């Protein structure tokens, strides 16, 4: 506990100021640089005096703009496509993770079955494995094992619809990336939701059963509304990871399924690093998670179960 006079201590404010500077500083730097020309950025004059320009944004968004900016000779960035890809992958993987996660967590908390403790423990252990370790085996599996024969019935149909040359594989598809994200985020989501489900009084479920609810109605009408804060927290977490993830996406995506973080890196080549465009894309990249978090965090209300049982 901090006593009142530690708050008045100048060192306390100095530490706070330092922390704020450390967290907000890069964002401000990115924001300012996104309005500078590359020459201004590289010149090192980190002064506040420069001529703001939206050229970087124009270049980053060149494929979605309705007009053709003069300074862009060739639109190499597929911002729109990458944005949609990121959105599809992040949203679907978040939804899937939550749906599977809340059911798994409920089962782990409420049902007694063989190997329950093992499952509970190993979910957490799996979480400890760094995603980079998964990269090589998953890359191999997605490219070679989980494939549909190009001459087969389904594989042929898919190839006729979407084109392509070889067998139809998981690698390079949205599903491939979504699948690995779900696997990656599920343990944490199960773990976090377990702690929320434990707090739902058992007598509530019993009351619902007596009132005539079947197992699924108990889950969807009583348990789920009560763990909404947990779901929101888990959703923010999952969405953010899926949105930011670079390593796995870079290996598993192809030209059409590229996500935003990979698009940014594409601005670096051996000849040139387009800092301005990178900063502009970075700013744009930050917007959806912020909106998502603002929306989801509204669901995080404490004291959801207040008044359920004696108090």
């Amino acid at each position, binding site marked *: 506990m901090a006593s009142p006079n530690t708050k008045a201590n100048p060192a306390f404010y100095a530490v706070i100021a330092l922390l704020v500077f450390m967290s907000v500083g890069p964002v401000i730097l990115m924001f300012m640089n996104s309005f500078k020309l590359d020459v201004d950025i590289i010149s090192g004059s980190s002064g506040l005096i420069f001529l703001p320009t939206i050229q970087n944004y124009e270049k980053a968004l060149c494929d979605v703009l309705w007009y053709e900016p003069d300074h862009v000779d060739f639109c190499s960035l597929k911002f729109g496509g990458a944005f949609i890809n990121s959105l599809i992958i992040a949203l679907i993987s978040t939804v899937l993770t939550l749906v599977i996660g809340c059911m798994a967590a409920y089962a782990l908390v409420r049902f007694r079955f063989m190997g329950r403790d093992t499952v509970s423990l190993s979910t957490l252990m799996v979480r400890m494995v760094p995603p980079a370790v998964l990269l090589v085996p998953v890359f191999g599996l997605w490219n070679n094992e989980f494939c549909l024969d190009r001459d087969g019935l389904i594989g042929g149909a898919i190839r006729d619809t979407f084109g392509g040359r070889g067998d139809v594989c998981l690698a390079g598809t949205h599903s491939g990336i979504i699948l690995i994200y779900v696997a990656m985020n599920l343990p944490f989501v199960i773990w976090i939701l377990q702690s929320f489900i434990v707090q739902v009084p058992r007598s509530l479920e*019993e009351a619902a059963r*007596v009132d005539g609810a079947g197992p699924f109605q108990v889950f969807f009408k009583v348990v789920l509304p009560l763990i909404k804060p947990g779901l929101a927290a888990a959703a923010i977490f999952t969405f953010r990871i899926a949105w930011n993830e670079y390593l796995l996406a870079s290996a598993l995506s192809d030209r059409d399924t590229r996500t935003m973080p990979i698009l940014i890196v594409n601005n670096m080549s051996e000849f040139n690093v387009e800092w301005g465009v990178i900063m502009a894309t970075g700013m744009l990249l930050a917007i959806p998670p912020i909106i998502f978090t603002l929306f989801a965090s509204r669901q995080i209300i404490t004291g959801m179960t*207040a*008044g359920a*049982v*004696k108090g």
Partner: protein
Amino acid sequence: MLTIRLENLIKRYGDVQVLHGIDLEMADNEFTVLVGPSGCGKSTTLRMIAGLEEVSEGEIFVDGKPVSHLEPKDRDLAMVFQDYALYPHMNVAQNISFALRLARRPKAEIEKKVREVADTVGLTEFLARKPGALSGGQRQRVAMARALAKDSGIFLFDEPLSNLDAKLRGQMRAELALMSQRVQKNMIYVTHDQIEAMTLADRIVVMHGGYIQQQGTPEELFKRPVNKFVAGFMGMPPMNFLDGEIVEHDGGVFVKGDGFDVQLIGEKAAKAQKHNSKQITLGIRPSDLAFEADAEPARALKLDVEVSEYVGAQSVLLCKCGPARVMVEVNSQTPVALGQTLTFAIDPGGVHLFDRNTEVAL
């Protein structure tokens, strides 16, 4: 007719058996109270009737049909839980109508029923509130309203009043008694509070250690307990027990112990005479002792008054009789000084005898 019959009901948790063959029959529209100390199996019995616990052995019949394999929702019952178990994300009206909405009743019917039930328990102005914004007593009412709205044949109560403060408990007890007269349903009520049991029940079932000790009307249990446990459990303050021996002298049958020698009369004397063991426990309720200075010594106890507890119109005197403690209920006007040795006459009808080893009433 909606009778409930329990037949040799047994419950085991692993190797531990907590209910040892409960046989019980509850008639239509009867208010049955299961009462007993913590861990006696009363709540387990109720939860088995509700279908929330599995039956290890035996069968539950409702209206002659076995139901122990049915889900709770198929058993035509409503239950009020000890901790209320209200759905915190729904308001009072939604809580009350939850069962009806699950049953997909027409909207107008649900609305009418909610208003009707809310009116019965006095919740009309709170229908839009969430449980979190209600007081303990109001929450308890919501829990009861929810059960009432379901219109089931059987009502189960699992210690519904134990979370309320003493005053509110008394008030809710009275309301419950009124409600039970009005709705005329089969009610099974679990409590550890013998006063609740006495005031509410048509029939009391006293349980202890997973066995039914005795069942009957409140009066039967109070006046004719079958064993020492029931005698000590029913009634407040509890019955006094004095260990003694059956002796015969001066042409009468007496119970003689440390500090007392009480003559038995009538039927009791005959029973004591015939009883094969002389080791006996004498039981006398505090209310069956009356201060009477010139009482006949063979029909009275001489007690040293140690503590006097004033509780209003009555005072409870804690006295000593040899090594044993005896409680006496007297009118507060009785002039009693602590440390005095006084004579208290025993009401002849208030003498209970128990075998000291088996604790069974004679």
